[in-house]
């Protein structure tokens, strides 16, 4: 029945090595609602969810499911009770089919052996019942991230989930796919399922959620209906700041200097008709010194391919790259670094940090060629570099020798940025620099990017968050299907304009980028 509390948690405490990740948190989830759970990284959201799903044991407090007290020892227990989580990183079996994934552990049997025909049929019924057009025999790894997420949700439902937890479900989805997800969520809500929705993206929260619970530093700060709480208030609750302290707009970017019509700066990077494989068809763009150029586009439009081609990671097959009007064409990352192009990958866990090494070692890695003599590392020089950058970027760690994997996402990103800066680059290519980072660190990084551009570096920034592009860039280049289709000057820049260009931009003939 809608409105009845489905899940209730009271006084939940969870400690890790002496520190309290959760300090007496209450949480109430009603049937037939979509309940947002927000807070900065480290606020305790994922810990709370893990206690809900039985992945962690609580140290104190109580939990009721449909008014019955419950205690889960393992995720299997929670699933049996009807609580299912769909995580940000798809936790399914990539080599197995959709049908196998959905039925894992509960495969239908006939006379003791698995009945494959019935499994396929059951899967077909389930998927079509949810309005999903996915082939039950498709290998999971072949499907898009959105489809994989649908499969994860379908599995949860087929287990009989009455509580569905979605953790950052849209971080890899395109708009079209997000709409499909919302549709499904609303249908589930109408059917009485209780949903918990975790996200950093305010647009989404306001679009689809009913109530919101804010966590900060392991404590529940507020629970309110989203119709009664406006965005700035929500941000204030999350950060613990008062309204006046917030900047205008939702990002930390200041108005770019180019906006007041100064003389255009010297050209730094020029790319002409970059092409590689099928994903990158023909991209041309320009970045000038001191400029922040945003690179926008839907999933699959070729933004990361462009960035990786410019930085020698996946070099272009055809096309030309000019740095300060001299032909470059970087074919390996070290060539690009040497020329002054630095690249920050969007996946810091897989492509950024070396987890076992210390902050110092990670930070100085790219600069090794210049800080060594005859191959021998100069310890003194390294120490100086590290101290300088840790101070300047505000990297929070117990010391330069702490293992980087112990740092928060925001601090890891700062170390990686410092790594790039050590190479004295002229051009920074940043792929989703603030993704998956809490609001505080996000603001710091955005301010840093501003400062770097102000000091003369050129920046090419990929971001899926339109407000970041709108507020931070002097210009935005929009890509579609591997081609550049529009270049929006600051005066013409708005989220609508970008969306329009992404949707309507011609895929046949590339439009010449307008002069900045």
């Amino acid at each position, binding site marked *: 029945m809608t409105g009845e509390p489905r899940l209730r948690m009271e006084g939940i405490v969870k400690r890790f090595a002496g520190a309290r990740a959760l300090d007496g948190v209450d949480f109430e989830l009603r049937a037939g609602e979509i309940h947002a759970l927000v807070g900065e990284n480290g606020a305790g959201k994922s810990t709370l969810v893990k206690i809900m799903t039985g992945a962690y044991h609580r140290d104190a407090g109580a939990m009721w499911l449909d008014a019955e007290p419950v205690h889960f020892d*393992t995720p299997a227990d929670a*699933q049996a009770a009807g609580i299912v989580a769909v995580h940000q990183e798809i936790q399914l079996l990539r080599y197995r089919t959709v049908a196998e994934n959905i039925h894992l552990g509960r495969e239908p049997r006939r006379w003791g052996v698995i009945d494959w025909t019935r499994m396929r049929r059951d899967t077909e019924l389930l998927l079509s019942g949810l309005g999903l057009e996915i082939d039950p025999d498709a290998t999971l790894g072949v499907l898009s991230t959105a489809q994989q997420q649908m499969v994860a949700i379908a599995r949860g439902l087929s287990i009989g989930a009455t509580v569905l937890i979605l953790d950052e479900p849209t971080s890899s989805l395109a708009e079209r796919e997000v709409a499909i997800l919302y549709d499904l969520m609303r249908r589930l809500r109408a059917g009485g399922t209780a949903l918990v929705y975790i996200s950093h993206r305010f647009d989404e929260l306001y679009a689809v959620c009913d109530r919101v619970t804010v966590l900060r530093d392991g404590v529940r700060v507020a629970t309110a209906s989203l119709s009664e709480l406006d965005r700035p208030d929500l941000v204030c609750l999350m950060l613990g700041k008062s309204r006046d302290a917030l900047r205008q707009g939702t990002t930390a970017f200041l108005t770019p200097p180019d906006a007041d019509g100064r003389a255009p700066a010297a050209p730094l990077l020029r790319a002409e008709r970059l092409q590689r*494989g099928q994903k990158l068809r023909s991209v041309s763009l320009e970045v000038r010194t001191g400029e922040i150029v945003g690179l926008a586009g839907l999933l699959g439009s070729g933004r990361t391919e462009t960035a990786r081609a410019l930085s020698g990671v996946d070099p272009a097959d055809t096309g030309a790259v000019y740095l300060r009007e001299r032909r470059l064409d970087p074919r390996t990352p070290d060539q690009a670094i040497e020329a002054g192009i630095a690249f920050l990958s969007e996946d810091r866990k897989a492509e950024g940090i070396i987890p076992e090494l210390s902050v110092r070692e990670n930070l100085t890695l790219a600069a090794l060629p210049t800080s060594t003599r005859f191959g021998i590392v100069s310890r003194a020089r390294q120490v100086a570099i590290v101290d300088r950058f840790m101070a300047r970027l505000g990297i929070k760690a117990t010391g330069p020798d702490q293992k980087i994997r112990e740092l928060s996402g925001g601090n890891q990103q700062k170390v990686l940025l410092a790594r790039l800066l050590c190479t004295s680059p002229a051009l920074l290519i940043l792929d989703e620099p603030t993704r998956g980072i809490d609001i505080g660190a996000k603001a710091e990084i955005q301010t840093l990017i501003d400062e770097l551009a102000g000091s003369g570096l050129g920046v090419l920034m990929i971001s899926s968050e339109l407000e970041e592009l709108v507020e931070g860039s002097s210009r935005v280049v929009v890509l579609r299907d591997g081609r550049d289709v529009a270049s929006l000057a600051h005066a013409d820049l708005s989220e609508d304009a970008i969306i329009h260009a992404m949707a309507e931009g011609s895929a046949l003939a590339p439009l010449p980028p307008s002069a900045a």
Partner: protein
Amino acid sequence: MSRPSTAGVPPDNGRPGRVRAAGARAFSTRTAAVLQRQGALVVLIAVCVLGVVRYGSFATPENLLNVLRQNSMLGLVALGMTVVILTGGIDLSVGSLVAVAGVVAAKVSGSGMIASLVAGVGVATALGLTNGVLIAKVRLPPFIVTLAMMIAARGAVLGATAEASLRMNRTGSGITWLGRGVFAGLPVPVLIVACAYAAGWLALRYTRWGRSVYAVGDSQDAARLLGLNVDRVLISTYALSGALAGLAGVVLAARLGAGQPVAGTGWELDAIAAVVVGGTLLTGGLGGVGSTLVGILLLGVIFNLFNLQGTITPWWQWIMRGAFLLGVVVVQSRLQRGFGHGQPR
């Protein structure tokens, strides 16, 4: 992390969990795996054709049965190794367990065939179980655990026998039949292996346990989050590997008439080679019993052809085996990389 089976090579270094396989790459991996299995089968057929064409005595029933029988015990070991590798692990102890089982069976052989069988297989299973518990519950890497077991078990069996073979007591027991008997025209060891492979194939395909083996190899974390009892699956696979090695050891001892403490030396590497050649991925999650069967037969036929040729010294055989293995894995690696141009960004 299970074992050091990977290199510092981007991007498809085969390390479990590292590769975010989505889109074309995963599909190509599956295609490549299928191709790998068919590939090995094609090579097997080609080699057999070569054998028929070049050596008159190749296609005779005696020779073929000989090939089957000589590889039957290794085949049992490779079957167990396949299941372990499917979970993303490895079992280096199987060679030593073969010796342990053989010696134990010989020791107990006075009490009859059943006693020998139960004792030999039982001890080996217990040791395999120990491996599994150390790996699943204490969370030690499979490479190290089974390496330690390999050393310890070999040491124990050498010590217990004072490095001498232990004769089997054959009076009145059916034990010789196990190793040298014939049933329905086929040598008993071959029948045992055939049944084992059939049972293995059925179990992997048609039981929940079998599907969970594939799941654990695909991603241990995902399997756990999806509610599987990963520990139990892992322990069962190492116990099974021990059991099959034990069975191989008892049959071998029955055949030789003695339990030899040096038996099975190097079999773990041969088994791994057979599994790899057959097409099962060392990282787990893909492959199967059929692939290993092809791998065992392929390596067995090649060895047989060497023998029929007669003029190839053991040393050159080793060189050729090494080169063949290298060739196979290079081709497999090419197949895996040939497809897939990455996912959309």
